[in-house]
């Protein structure tokens, strides 16, 4: 088995990849740390009150005074973004938690249960797939009213079937793996194999999925905000900011461009971190 890969000393190659990637990693950790601080103690980072009206300074562009400009009521957009972090992250993390929990249950039943049950659960996953997330969100909002919780549940359920399939695939491939067979050959019990090998290995890629999903959930939630299914004002959740800014796009671009960039930045940082964690988990065992 001689290929270009094995010619190279494997350790050196992955070490250099890791080092190169480090810049991106540190950058994304910095960004995430900023957002974490903003979520926990927004007062530390904000320059203004997020709700205070300043009607004489409405719709002013970014300046030293107002880093991200002001909105139609003269509220400081930067401070609104900072104060909106908690709710946005809550939506991202909450939706991911809901989604992954559902996916874990469905995915592991589909992979581990007896044929009939597994088949039934597989159909449930398919039905979830076929059911439009938009409709789910609209219906949930009608029942629960528009709130962060509604977005969490809607996005969580909406993205669950995809993850359920991934988890199912992971468990199945772990089940078929050489190390599980080796454990069977060693005479280990079914439960021991499940607990020691199948579950931990199937769950491992979830770390990356989770970070990917956090960013993606916020993007999803911003779509719901566009459809008027966002959080209640004056909360400045980013999706809601984006939605509120749309009337003003031609005259006050910052109101829509900046929240959009903030969402993309978070999604990017979370995704980058996730990719790195995945890399480390897959290659870093040395």
């Amino acid at each position, binding site marked *: 088995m001689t290929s270009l890969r094995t010619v190279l000393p494997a350790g050196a190659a992955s070490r250099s990849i890791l080092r190169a990637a480090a810049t991106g990693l540190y950058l994304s950790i910095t960004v995430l740390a900023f957002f974490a601080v903003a979520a926990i103690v927004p007062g530390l980072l904000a320059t203004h009150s997020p*709700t205070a009206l300043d009607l004489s300074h409405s719709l002013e562009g970014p300046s030293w005074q107002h880093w991200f400009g002001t909105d*139609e009521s003269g509220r400081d957009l930067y401070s609104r973004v900072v104060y909106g972090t908690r709710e946005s992250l809550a939506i991202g993390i909450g939706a991911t938690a809901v989604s992954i929990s559902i996916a874990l249950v469905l995915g592991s039943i589909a992979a581990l249960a007896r044929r009939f049950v597994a088949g039934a659960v597989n159909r449930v996953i398919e039905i979830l797939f076929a059911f439009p997330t938009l409709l789910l969100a609209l219906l949930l909002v009608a029942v629960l009213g528009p709130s962060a919780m509604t977005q969490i549940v809607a996005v969580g359920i909406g993205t669950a079937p995809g993850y359920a399939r991934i988890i199912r695939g992971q468990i199945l491939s772990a089940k078929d793996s050489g190390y599980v067979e080796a454990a069977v050959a060693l005479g280990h019990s079914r439960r021991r194999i499940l607990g020691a090998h199948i579950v931990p290995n199937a769950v491992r890629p979830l770390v990356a999925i989770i970070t990917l999903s956090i960013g993606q959930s916020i993007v999803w939630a911003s779509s719901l905000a566009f459809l008027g299914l966002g959080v209640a004002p004056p909360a400045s959740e980013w999706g809601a900011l984006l939605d509120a800014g749309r009337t003003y796009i031609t005259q006050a671009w910052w109101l829509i461009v900046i929240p959009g960039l903030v969402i993309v930045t978070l999604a990017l940082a979370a995704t980058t971190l996730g990719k790195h964690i995945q890399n480390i988990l897959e290659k870093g065992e040395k």
Partner: protein
Amino acid sequence: MPTMKSITATSIALGLAIAVTLSGCAGGGQAPATDAKRVSGGTIVYGHQQEPACVFGGWIEQAYLSYQVIDNLVSLDANHKVVPWLAETWKPSDDQLSWTFTLKKGVTFTDGTPVDAAAVAYNFDYWLQGGNSTAEVWLQGYYRSAEVVDATTVRINLLKPYPRLADNLTQSYFGIQSEKALTTRSKEENCAAPIGSGAFIVEKWNRGEDIILKRNKNYTSPPANAKHTGAAYVDTIDWKFISDPTTRVATLRSGETNAIYDVPAIEWKNLEGQKYQLLKYVTPGRPQQISFNTAQGPFTDEKVRQAFAYSLNRRQIVETIGRGVIPYEGNGGVSQTTPGYSTKAADLYSYDPKKANSLLDAAGWNQKDSSGYRVKDGKTLEVVLPYGAGSIINADGASILQGVQEQAKAVGFKVKLVPVPQSAFFGGAYSKPAERDLAVGYWTAVNAGILYINWRQSLPDDPNYNNAAFLNDPTLESYILQANSTSDVAEQNALYQKAQDYIAEHALAIGVYDRLSTLAVSPSLKGVWQETAQGGPVFYDAYFVK
């Protein structure tokens, strides 16, 4: 795909691109020369906001649309005077209990059947039997029967006097349709393409996109306040549904539309500067106002209601967010364009936080919690304000309500804004006294008779769910009823004003801003005007110039 170095670079590029493209943009708005000549025919592409389910119905979006297709008995002119349309003359009986309408001769519906007394009588019964729920609300309790006197004379019999009947009949909810069409065609056909005697005929409805209205070549029955007679000047109206306001303005700029409805306040000055014709009409009737729940919760105390009113600088909020386009309205009863408007009621509460604070102290809300909200007997002064987001309250409205929330907070009110989605809102969410403390909303009407709908008592055998304050006040109702049945205009207006003042003094409802109907029209299109009953666009007199 360019090599993107960083997000910042991208954003700057985008920002610049947008700025550059917008500043230098006049799109299709090429101003015609001053000696522009009228050209015959053509298609008006009109960008409207919302697509209703049917052309004719009880919703204002439907009224705007059906106005083009269906004629009313009477029309309201610019001076709020009722003028002839299908009816040439009308007259109440001395006891005010029956009205006789004499119709224009020789007018036919577009299906060829005559516009006669029988058709008109049929329409009255049709509205009352579910054909138009809004018409039904207006006539309920007054209407008894419609009687055919002869081919061109119809008599409307009432249960009690209703001097403002003719005024109300100017709204498009009272459009006269072909009896034959209503009785022989399917509900679906009457929904999508009702048959009236109007200047235009529904040709095709491309659901989700537009409705094509063709000129009625044989049109003979324009209202008396129209600028010309005979058929309309243009061949076609392409009535497009463009729900996104940014897109709507963009289509006007790019020349893809000739006129658009509901111009965002932020775009107003710009468009004006670019030679577009801007039309604005404050619809009469109930303004966007806040009603207090007088049946339950903190606002049962009049002092608390007044404190809330004093805590707000409504004018400043409205004028900033409305960018000078949306008019401030202090009157909680009717808007400034409504006959019988009371300025006194409008000016009663100006921004006075001191007064608000002392009123709240007096009402027993004299403690504050850590967030600065007032507390009484361990209960926080929290009030729930639900609003129909995206349906009743648009984006500007939502911003204004957030301003209200923030200002009320300063004196210790914790206002909980609840955006209610359309389905829940129309499903009756937050319609009960226990569910809300404040209610916002408007109701277009041609006169102060709207007060009757909004303030009539809600009694077990005759409930009034439109009474948003949940107020059963016989005094107020008696003022309004008196006014309704008074035929002398000045006397009637005085009574209506009395009712408005009563509402203001007891702080039952406070006004916030007036509901506007706005149009932006490209320079090449002339002669567009807004009808004054509801502010809808009128294209009958419109023509293109070159």
